[in-house]
């Protein structure tokens, strides 16, 4: 279980990384935290010719407030930072709540936000959580024919970013540089929960929810997303509509949970049947939406 040979580029800036990625004649992969990529290399399930190490790029490690009062996470922000940053706990408590479910402390020391999103694993927690928060990703590449150092950037909503299992809208010459989230509105409550075989494992199923209640206690807006609920990290738009315009009574929440389970497309694997996953999605949706709503009310 030793990795295959590869060329190694330690990028010190985003431009250096983009420069390396721009040369698509060599199969190049960015190396972020490496907590998913390196096991794949060790099993020789991935055999890239070149790795571009992003760990030396300081500008990607920042946690910032955006112009509209939202949050920008540099791609190389570590899970550990998310977990412990008091600013995040205050502004996006869902991130602080969900991050401890990601693997183990030693993995969170290295694992990054950008790496998790770019990996596009339907079983991972962070993509689902970020979907619930309405996140978008910022993507850069070197401009074709442009001067070295000139970039083309684009922003993609996370809902459009995930195209399939381990498959995203990211092109081989592109780098995910940041994830941005709009500010949370007054009256919002969020929650996350999952069922995993062991603490730190990929979940059998997980649910993240965000609900906004108006002063009359009626739900104005809801977002629910699933871990291991389909081929991609998925936002359950239809199920969320069951909640909108209603007071979050137990009956309404149960209907939402049922809709979520009914419209989910979980896969069967050695750890859980499709029926079991669907059932867990219903149970977890009920629990998580109730908790999110309770958090607004209390």
């Amino acid at each position: 279980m030793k990795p295959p040979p590869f060329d190694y580029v330690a990028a010190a800036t985003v431009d250096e990384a983009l420069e390396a990625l721009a040369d698509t004649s060599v199969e190049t992969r960015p190396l972020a935290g490496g907590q998913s990529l390196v096991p794949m290399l060790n099993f020789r399930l991935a055999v890239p010719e070149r790795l571009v190490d992003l760990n030396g790029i300081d500008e990607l490690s920042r946690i910032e407030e955006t112009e509209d009062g939202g949050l920008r996470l540099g791609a190389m922000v570590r899970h550990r930072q998310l977990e412990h940053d008091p600013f995040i706990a205050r502004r996006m408590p869902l991130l602080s709540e969900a991050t401890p479910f990601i693997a183990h402390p030693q993995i969170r020391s290295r694992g990054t936000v950008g790496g998790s999103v770019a990996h596009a694993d339907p079983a991972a927690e962070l993509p689902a959580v970020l979907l619930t928060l309405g996140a978008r990703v910022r993507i850069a590449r070197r401009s074709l024919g442009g001067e070295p150092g000139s970039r083309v950037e684009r922003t993609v909503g996370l809902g459009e970013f995930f195209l399939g299992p381990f498959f995203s809208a990211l092109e081989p010459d592109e780098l995910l540089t940041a994830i941005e989230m709009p500010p949370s509105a007054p009256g919002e409550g969020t929650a996350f929960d999952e069922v995993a075989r062991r603490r730190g494992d990929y979940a059998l199923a997980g649910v993240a929810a965000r609900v906004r209640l108006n002063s009359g206690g009626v739900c104005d807006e809801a977002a629910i997303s699933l871990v291991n609920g389909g081929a991609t990290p998925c936002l359950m738009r239809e199920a969320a509509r069951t909640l909108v315009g209603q007071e979050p009574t137990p009956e309404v929440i149960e209907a939402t949970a049922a809709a979520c389970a009914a419209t989910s497309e979980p896969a069967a694997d050695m750890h859980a049947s499709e029926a079991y996953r669907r059932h867990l999605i219903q149970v977890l949706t009920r629990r998580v939406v109730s908790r999110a709503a309770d958090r607004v009310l209390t």
Partner: protein
Amino acid sequence: MRIAARVNGLAWSGEVEPRLLLSDFLRSEVGLTGTHVGCEHGVCGACTVQLDGEPVRACLMFAVQVDGREVTTVEGLAEAQPGEAITVEDLHPVQRALHEAHGLQCGFCTPGILMTAEAFLRDNPTPSREEIREAVSGHLCRCTGYHNIVEGVARAAELLAADGPAAHDDDDR
């Protein structure tokens, strides 16, 4: 590729192949075989070392990535020079606590657990049993059933507290 790093406070520099895993680098290039390799896919935790004081899986990093950084391995815990005889009295409080609590049997997973526990107790000097269990849940041990590892880490917190903050700061490096 040429790298220069500090390992347990000592400078190391030399050529390494980019694909050389940090775990293999420590064991075969630096000659520190206390860092053990159990799965090479980041689950068992036996290879855990500290990178600038934070626990990481050495099997999920490359040696080239520690260029300019500080790595601490199990050999860096007790205050003895390589080759010098070590007695129970020389052990780091976390090591001594595991000894007292019988928190190891075959001892293969132990170095990784020590590196996690030492960092964990710096962040959380007075943990509950439940917090300890969570902190070491990224380590597989097939011998102990974890019971005495948890007791050992709890004991280590007591020993560190008794040693006073000054001693603890020393350990922070």
